[in-house]
């Protein structure tokens, strides 16, 4: 519990860490209707595509230095040899990032959905999907960031980006299922299953990678 509070204080004090991605997301979603001809039918179709891509890119941006500062000032080594297990600390860090960046973006995204498609059904149904999806994205991108930790380059993140493309296929089908009222709970269950596997595995993998970096 103390670990979570500690991470929360660290991220809150670094205001550009959590406010920046949220503002970028709002900027993308506001710029989208401006660049498209204002006709209500077309906005419906392309809105969700822009939404998923915007969330993907914003999550990639926000996890760019999730481990970098800690690695540079040595506190990552302290975490590695402390009593609390390293996967737990990493899971807490990712959870805090999701809480401060992922949840506001999901809420703002569903509000934009309400505004641009004028359908409360879509907006309410897309909110849990957005929450789960942003958590999965943050997990996978922090795995990518951990791979190229000492270089500080974006190579690790770019290499893990292709892993998320099948997820985008599933998300597209989820939106169709909301529109046609087909199998919505099935898709939510599928996403929850993917999320549960990833939450358990990714902190273990990242702790192995960080220990390899610190040697």
């Amino acid at each position, binding site marked *: 519990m103390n670990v979570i509070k500690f991470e929360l204080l660290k991220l809150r004090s670094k205001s550009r860490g959590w406010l920046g991605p949220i503002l970028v997301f709002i900027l993308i979603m506001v710029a989208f209707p401006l660049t498209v001809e204002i006709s209500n039918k077309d906005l419906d179709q392309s809105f969700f595509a822009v939404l998923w891509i915007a969330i993907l890119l914003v999550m990639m941006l926000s996890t760019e230095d999730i481990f970098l500062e800690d690695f540079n000032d040595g506190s990552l080594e302290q975490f590695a040899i402390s009593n609390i297990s390293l996967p737990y600390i990493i899971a807490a860090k990712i959870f805090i990032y999701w809480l401060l960046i992922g949840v506001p973006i999901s809420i703002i995204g569903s509000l934009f959905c309400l505004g641009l498609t004028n359908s409360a059904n879509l907006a309410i149904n897309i909110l849990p999907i957005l929450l789960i999806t942003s958590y999965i994205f943050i997990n996978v991108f922090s*795995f990518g960031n951990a*791979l*190229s930790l000492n*270089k500080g*380059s974006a*190579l*690790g993140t*770019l*290499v*893990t980006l*292709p*892993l998320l*493309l*099948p997820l985008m*296929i599933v998300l597209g*089908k989820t939106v169709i299922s909301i529109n046609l009222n087909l199998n919505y709970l099935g898709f939510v269950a599928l996403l929850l299953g993917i999320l549960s596997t990833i939450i358990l595995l990714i902190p273990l*993998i990242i702790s*192995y*990678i960080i220990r*390899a*970096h610190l040697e």
Partner: protein
Amino acid sequence: MIKKFIHQFASPKTYIYQVDRAYSYIFYISLVLYLVSIFWGLFLTPEDFVQGNSYRIIYLHVPASFISQSLYIAMAIASAIFLIWKVKLSVYLVRSIAPIGAITTFIALISGSIWGIPTWGTWWAWDARIVSTLILFIMYLGLISLHDSFSNHEKADKFLSILVLVGSVNIPIIKMSVEWWSTLHQPASITISDKPAIDLVMLYPLFGSIVGFAGLVTCLVILSSKLQILRRERNKSWIKNYV
């Protein structure tokens, strides 16, 4: 005694000497098999009722895509062996299979898209199997660039193995995508349990070309692993005797 037999394969020196002896046999047998199957498929099989003569691309496209997925599974197994038992030869093999896998996937994508022009009218479609194969191609390239970006070889090996294992989630998606979603790509014609959906006359050259192509790809992997071992073990004493 079995342990000793298996342990001797873990040394790059034994591997390279034994592989040198077997290389010519594998190369010539698989080359003959592949050329005979391609010739048989291109000239001696009757034309298809639906697709006309353009179905003959199957003898080039199916071996390439099947082998590219099998190469990734081989990389995943070798990565697991490296992470558990720390056998250096395994990770040399992983690094040497990666470019060959990229080339095979490239062949599969190109032949598939050129086949799509007469069959479907379009050379690209965003359906699940094609996109997943494209993702496999990008993953192969990402593996090569990740390994080459590290100057410390031990770290590079570990991260390469982890990334191969994490990315192996793509292979079930490719194999099952034609069953899970109804897509443009046709379902598998050859399964383990049912009768094949393709005529027997066309099936034999297909098997021959798959086995022949697998042999040729094995020769390429042997060459690539030789290059990798020479690079990584250049400071060892047995290299002087070998070259």
